[in-house]
């Protein structure tokens, strides 16, 4: 269907953005790459009053590292995550995740901030942010606030962003931890039937502070606390992996979807758990 009638405004700076948001009130809807928003408008399920285009705001761009954190502007493209050398060096999990997102033409326009703000529970980047223990830098006319990724995704397609607040950037701590992502999709580029983004540290073979975050299996990216507890401090081997798989029963409450019943998603999550964790035993594992 054709998009509904709506307004459009460009914000060239944060100051312009705050006044535009003020002016349009609840009718204002932020648009960045629009790769999800515009597709949903074609379903005519929502009718935004005015789209406020933030792609011209320079302050929301850029990838930098200060030695402590890697900072990714909200307008960072999925294609940037695929190829940027700083991302490759400091957040290889994101470099591995980005090529799993849709297809080249989407990655050339879709943004990190947009993906996080849309908060699709089957999407890769929200899960990666939780696994990486990233901080979402939210901004509004009142200033900036920092939200841990684990607290950012609140419900199905819902985030901790307040009205008239946007994602300005994310910060990823440079920890040198290991990371991996794996997903099961029907076809290349599809949303995952189930996926797992994981980070952990290995200290003399012992697992420290594992963060297993499952996507496509719940209303939000699911941080598996029980599985993490089952792994914490143990050596990475078949026994500890099996313990984590068992513990997942407490972590996951997947919905039924077109791919299958909750039971199938639980099963696939266990398969992913084994595959991802066994992968950490592989010498080729990279830092997160």
């Amino acid at each position, binding site marked *: 269907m054709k998009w*509904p*009638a709506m307004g459009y405004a460009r914000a060239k700076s944060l100051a312009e953005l705050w006044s535009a948001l003020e002016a349009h009130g609840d009718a204002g809807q932020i648009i960045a790459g629009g790769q999800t928003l515009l597709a949903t408008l074609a379903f005519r399920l929502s009718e935004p009053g005015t789209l406020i285009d933030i792609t011209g705001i320079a302050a929301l761009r850029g990838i930098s590292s200060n030695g402590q954190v890697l900072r990714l502007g909200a307008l960072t493209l999925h294609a940037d995550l695929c190829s940027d050398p700083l991302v490759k060096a400091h957040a290889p999990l994101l470099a591995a995740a980005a090529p799993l997102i849709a297809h080249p033409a989407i990655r050339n326009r879709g943004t990190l901030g947009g993906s996080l703000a849309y908060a699709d529970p089957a999407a890769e980047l929200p899960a990666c942010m939780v696994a990486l223990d990233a901080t979402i830098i939210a901004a509004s006319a009142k200033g900036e606030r920092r939200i841990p990724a684990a607290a950012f995704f609140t419900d199905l397609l819902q985030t901790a962003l307040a009205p008239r607040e946007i994602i300005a950037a994310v910060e990823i701590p440079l920890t040198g931890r290991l990371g991996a992502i794996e997903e099961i999709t029907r*076809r290349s580029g*599809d949303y995952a*039937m189930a996926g797992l983004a994981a980070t952990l540290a290995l200290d003399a073979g012992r697992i420290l502070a594992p963060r297993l975050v499952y996507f496509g299996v719940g209303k939000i990216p699911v941080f598996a606390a029980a599985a993490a507890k089952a792994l914490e401090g143990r050596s990475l081997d078949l026994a500890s992996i099996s313990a984590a798989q068992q513990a997942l029963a407490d972590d996951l409450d997947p919905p039924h979807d*077109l*791919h*299958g019943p909750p039971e199938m998603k639980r*099963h696939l999550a266990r398969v992913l758990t084994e595959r991802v964790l066994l992968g950490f035993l592989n010498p080729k594992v990279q830092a997160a």
Partner: protein
Amino acid sequence: MNEITPASIGLSREDLPNSYIGRSVPRPNVPKLVQGRATYTDDVTLPRMLHAAFLRSPHAHAKISAIDTAPAKAVPGVIRVFTGHDLAKFCDPWVATLDHLKGMKSAPQYPLPLNRATWQGEPIVAVVAESRAAAEDGVAALQVEFEALPAQTDMETALSPGAVVIHPELGDNLVFTRTAETGDVAAAFAAAHKVVEARFVTGRHTGVTLEPRSIIADYNPADETLTVHHSTQAPHMMQGVFAKQLRMKEGDVRVICKDVGGSFGIKVHVYPDEVAVAAMARIMGRPVKFVADRFESFVSDIHARDHRLKGRLAVDAEGRVLAFDIDDLTGIGPYSVYPRTSAIEGNQVVNLCGGPYDFKNYRCTTTVVLQNKTPTCQYRAVGHPIATTVTEGLMDLAAEALGMDPVEIRRRNLIRDDAYPYTSPPGMRFEGLSHHASLNKLLEMVPLERIRADQTEARQRGVYRGIGFASFIELTNPSPFMYGIGGARISAQDGCTVRMDPDGSIVASSGVTEQGQGTEAILAQIVAHGVGVPVNRVKIITGDTQTTPYGGGTWACRGAGIGGEAALQSAIALKQQILEVAGAMLQATPETLDIAMGEITDKASGKPRMTLFELGRIVYFRGDTLPKDLQRELVQTRHFITKEYPFAFTNGIQASWVEVDPATGMVKLLEHWCVEDCGRVVNPLLVDEQVRGGIVQGIGGALYEHCVYDAEGNLLTTTLADYLVPMSAEMPEIHVGHVETPTRESLLGAKGAGEAGTAGAPAAIMNAINDALRPFKARVHEQPFTPERILRALGTIA
């Protein structure tokens, strides 16, 4: 770009004129396609053109209680709103039955229903506006009250007491049933060494042409003519339909169909929204365009293959087939689709099961019932993938029960290559097939020993691979026995007019149509061959009822076999006519002359005598110099229809090599092979990728595509993110081989090639998956073979 010259296709002058047939000549249509210079229906803009959008039923079954059009009329840009009652004053309903399908019944269907919606997505109210966006705004503003009614969605209960009878005037939901029975089935099963049986399901899926259904209807009140630009496979048939339903003379309707963005059977049916567009244009006296958007395509394009089958197979100790016993049930939606009807698919299942094999005892019943879902009708390889799935699934079960190799059981039962003509148990007459030659050719291509060794070795590593085979037959080149005898005005005959213009160039107009198969390319090859000119001197006209000979269009793989033969005969006739004229000019008998590469030559020596350019100059501009009584019309028309056999059957065999991940239920397609026999191959380049495309559509049905409904009859897969089509990353490399058994019904000898891939692929993949799963004693027979279904078969999930 890609100038086609003798040299560019590897020909010397000496090869001509007999060299275009069988050559991989590049399609002359492709340069415009790769440069974005084609003309699809939506690319056409007419003066004063309006745009239509439809409010579609949100319910599977509902009474239309009230329609308030006023809010829609108030929307800026909206010109007019039409309800079912508005259109019924100008447009008659239709009933889709065929007389030769005994007892068949269906209800009258209007362009927009009068009182009741019978499927979710049925067009209910039309809004016509200055733009598509405004028309959609109008649809959003419409106030329509529905009173939801209980929906009959499950085909299994459609005939039960207590079923919702969708059209009470019909008495029940039974559209058609037929049983074919030959021999003594009961005795054969009683005497069998082994009996195998299984329940098969083929998933409801749809065509998803990338170009959606598109139409512009333009009524000119001044001369009382209706011109329809239409993305269709059958312009002449649609001309008749528009005329009949709108109470016009057929001669006052013209259907033009330029480039068509894929069809596969989807665009050969009468859709209520398209008839509504024609009716609205007639009423308003100005052009109205309608292009289905993707969401409405999913609920309004015909669906297909919604079948449940129970099959049994009896074999003797040597693995010989004694009997097939099959029960087929299919739900077709609330109406049989006009004019081909929705009973043909089930009827084809009855005609085709067991098709490749030589056996005596056969029973097959199809039961075709109504349901409140999108109507189903003919889609690529109508009934074939269903019949092949049952037949080949049962053959593999029998092989397993006997401990016999799946290739061996096929070899023992395939109809011998010297057994023709042969009549199959359900009465299909085969002129000449090549099952054994095809199997042998396939085994030359498939490295079976290496594959079996790899399979064994991989299992040791916990990697599960399997190979599956599927022999098939395919019905092509239909005669009037398909539709005409049932009373449908669907032409089985086709014509071609070939003319020579003054510069020696050739123009051929044909009743068959082009939707990407390469119809125009092969017609050009055939005409160039027949007349004796370079192929790039031939222009082809298709898709215009006013300028092409009456014909059936392109469907059921008839473009090459029927349209090609008409083209060949007319080209040969034109050549004879040219030689008559040349003989008069050169004072030679026509028999001593020939035409090669656009020149009149001396037949014996090959020496050039005169160019066609010169001949054209004299005929067209200096006719005064020719003998007064010389016939000089450089134009000839011939028609062709098959006469000896109702259908030209083709055959082939496919093999699929897959890897199944038992942990995830995912299937990876490793490699695929197909040998098919379409008779004379006019252009291998085109046929090979046709076959591959057909296989990929078969793969879609086997692994991905599924129209999923909830219990209330709501379609859940209405976007391309939910309805999964095959994409490049998951597709295997596909190897295609040919055996050629030309039909003797025509000089050209071509049979159809377009549906072979789709006919056999799902069965080959099913058998490959089950071969991979054999160590687990798990099997799947329900398409699509999703991870969920494979995990269930493995017992991983309940």
